[in-house]
């Protein structure tokens, strides 16, 4: 979306690339690599210098790279129902060894280009070149890509050494999320959903590896009771013991404290970056924030992540000072985007928003990763407050807080087919947003990873409806002001 990329954004990209490169290196050198749920206390793994990858983030990346469907289908072929969370399906297929690969001709060793791929070829004046033979636009060969096929690393591994093995290995798509090493252990925290528990159990079973579990039961009150904190604290001790057994190392308290300090610093910088959406017009779009999710998920306990977010913060201060924004259109309306984005359909999500001057200036991810705490009890309390583990009052309070602070005119609610705990009380939340904030809400059906569950026509109609309601609201307010 942004034409020029700011130093902060570049730094954030590097942080994620490095995390992935480190994990691949660790795996290649025979060191342990774990897979972790996004809101597992990463501070614990950091205390043991463990390289950790994040399947949710990976699945989002695979979906954004348009391979969500083939991976979801691969999981379905393994027996996982298409009702199951798309992230889980992608991850389970990956854990089973399935990979999205480029179709390769084993004779010639060349990739087989999909004639339906690619963008139209444009001439020097930017006009689409028409093929005189077919009367249809010509394709720009540089944008054409090979067919995507499904492969299996265990099948490849079993092949005799030789050309086919090498070609198939090399044909696996090269983007980082399709190159994550298989796990040696898994870290599961079910504060976001219970699906996570079964998802990680399945991985542990598939790969016959240890599972370290932090259980955070659902909470019905805004406060986290001391008894609940005690339960989680005891599990931290338990997890430390398991990590000691796994690594053969003693728990390094100093490293742990440093990881906590880093995680707090990252979370605070993240929250401040999110707060820049309060400016009117906002210096960037909430969609840009989605791009930084990878950092807050994969590198929270790393000092580099904190530094990169702090750098981005500076960029944003500068942008505000200069009255600049990365949003590529004039901001007419400001909305909260509720839920996880439909990663495979980000351009389609953005299109009608752009057409109507709607900027996303609030996303629930802001408080969702703002784990800030003082001590171990505070850490237990912080992890108790994930988006799907809190009661409706807390959930509404978070959202209405950012809606007010970030001055939204409406709310766009993603009924995410992949996420039952998230979507499960959205109808009531919508009623409360309208009642408490006087803003219109519109819901649409979609999915965080499986493109088959998104209906573009419905989405566009709902956005249109929301825009009309915001327009009417605005006119009413202006009339009242007069």
């Amino acid at each position, binding site marked *: 979306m942004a034409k020029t990329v700011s130093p902060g954004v570049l730094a954030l990209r590097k942080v994620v690339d490095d995390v992935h490169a480190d994990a691949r290196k660790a795996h290649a050198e025979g060191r342990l690599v774990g897979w972790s749920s996004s809101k597992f206390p990463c501070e614990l793994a950091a205390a043991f210098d463990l390289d950790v990858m994040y399947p949710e983030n990976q699945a989002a990346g695979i979906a954004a790279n348009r391979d969500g469907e083939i991976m979801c289908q691969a999981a379905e072929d*393994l*027996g*996982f*129902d298409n*009702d*199951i*969370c798309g992230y*889980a399906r992608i991850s389970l297929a990956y854990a089973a060894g399935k990979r999205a690969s480029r179709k390769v001709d084993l004779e010639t060793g060349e990739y087989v280009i999909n004639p339906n791929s690619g963008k139209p070829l444009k001439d020097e004046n930017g006009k689409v070149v028409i093929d005189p033979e077919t009367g249809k636009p010509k394709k720009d060969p540089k944008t054409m890509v090979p067919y995507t096929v499904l492969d299996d690393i265990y099948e490849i591994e079993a092949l005799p050494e030789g050309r086919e093995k090498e070609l198939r290995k090399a044909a696996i798509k090269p983007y980082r999320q399709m190159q994550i090493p298989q796990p040696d252990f898994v870290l599961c925290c*079910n504060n976001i*959903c*219970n*699906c996570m*528990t*079964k*998802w*990680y*159990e*399945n991985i*542990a*079973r598939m*790969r*016959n*590896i*240890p*599972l370290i*579990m932090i*259980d955070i*039961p*659902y*909470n*019905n009150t805004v406060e986290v*009771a001391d*008894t*609940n904190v*005690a*339960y989680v604290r*005891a*599990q931290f001790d*338990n997890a430390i013991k398991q990590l000691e057994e796994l690594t053969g190392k003693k728990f390094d308290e100093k490293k742990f404290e440093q990881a906590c300090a880093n995680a707090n610093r990252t979370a605070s910088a993240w929250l401040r970056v999110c707060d820049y959406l309060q400016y009117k017009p906002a210096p960037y779009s909430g969609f840009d924030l989605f791009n930084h999710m990878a950092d807050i998920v994969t590198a929270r306990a790393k000092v580099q992540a904190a530094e990169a977010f702090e750098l981005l913060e500076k960029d944003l201060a500068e942008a505000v000072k200069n009255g600049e924004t990365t949003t590529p259109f004039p901001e007419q309306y400001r909305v909260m985007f509720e839920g996880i984005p439909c990663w495979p359909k980000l351009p389609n999500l953005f299109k009608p928003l752009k057409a109507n001057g709607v900027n996303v200036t609030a996303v629930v991810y802001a408080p969702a990763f703002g784990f800030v705490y003082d001590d171990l009890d505070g850490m237990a309390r912080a992890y108790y407050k994930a988006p*799907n*583990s809190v*009661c*409706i009052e807390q959930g509404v309070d978070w959202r209405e807080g950012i809606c007010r602070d970030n001055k939204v005119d409406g709310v766009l609610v993603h*009924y995410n*087919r992949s996420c*039952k*705990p998230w*979507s*499960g*009380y*959205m*109808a*009531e939340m919508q009623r409360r947003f309208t009642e408490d904030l006087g803003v219109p809400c519109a819901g649409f*059906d979609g999915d965080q990873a499986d493109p088959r569950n998104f209906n573009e026509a419905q989405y566009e109609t709902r956005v249109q409806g929301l825009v009309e309601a915001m327009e009417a609201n605005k006119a009413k307010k202006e009339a009242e002001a007069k």
Partner: protein
Amino acid sequence: MSTEVLLNEFKEVSEHPHVVLSEYKKQGKKVIGVLPYYAPVELVVAAGMVPMGIWGSNNKTISMAKEYCATFYCTIAQLALEMLLDGTMDQLDGIITPTICDTLRPMSQNFRVAMKDKLPCIFLAHPQHRKPAFGLQFTVDQYTHVKNELEKIAGTAITDEALREAIKVMNRSRAARREFVKLAGQHPDAVSAVNRSAVLRAAWFMEPVPFAEKLEALNAELKALPECKWTGKKIVTSGIICDNPKLLQIFDDNKIAIAADDVAQESRAIRVDAAETGDPMMALAQQFADQDYEVLLYDEHSNQNRRGEYVANLVKNSGAQGLVLFMQQFCDPEEMEYPYLKKALDNAGVPHIKLGVDQQMRDFGQASTAIQAFADVL
């Protein structure tokens, strides 16, 4: 009393829970609705109140609940909300809302919001780390909350003595049900699939002592029967719930007997008893900790396929020839465990079919064809 008379009495209760509820209210009793799964009903009994299970409905259509839920939620939860909204359960004095699955988590909030000022909703969060000391303590803490809330409704304190007595009563009810499941499997000529379900379903609606007495009487009748020379097939059922008489009639029509079950509403709920001595709250926590081979619960030995193998062995040991899995639509714990259940069944040479079901199903033509075809290959 004859087997037939007893079975009909259970069937009456199973088909008309609202009549039973009205009867309790006429007698001046307080009644607590209990949603799935693993709520400690002993606490309700110890408070002198009647627990009634809420497992959706086979006769209702989701309408008012749509104000709270998108379509992709389990119909058991949606129909429970529907019955709270449409007045079916107006006579209840409170409900207990466990939150062990991803549908029940947000639904606990919907229940509470929808029933505001109308009905106390007692929240219950179970731990997944249920076996270690800290897990047991967490269960005790949560059960203590439930106990306190129940005491408020009952207007009386729950003593340890009363709780121990309630544990005995529920153990007796569970033991009678386990015995019945065994006997029904041995005497399918006397207990049809439809009647078997009615008996087990009635357990969720009847007061535990009268239920246990009646079931013990039925069990005695069944025990006295001569050995059954069953010429049909035998299967094991698995899933969250399969209590629709129309669906079960297909089994009876095709002479398919249910030898045992791995069903949440049936045997999964009665596998484990609580200790009758010692601290009764800890006994209930330990009972929950001892639940095993359960799709909803964390398995510390998750790198093994314990649950799948347990179910495969259940089929073999019960003398059944195959397994029918009732896959509750939108139930991700069941769906997540299916590939490894299938693996264990295939490894053990146990044939199975997976039937997609939900409580708004009205046409069983497809299910009938699938079940018939499955029976033919057994």
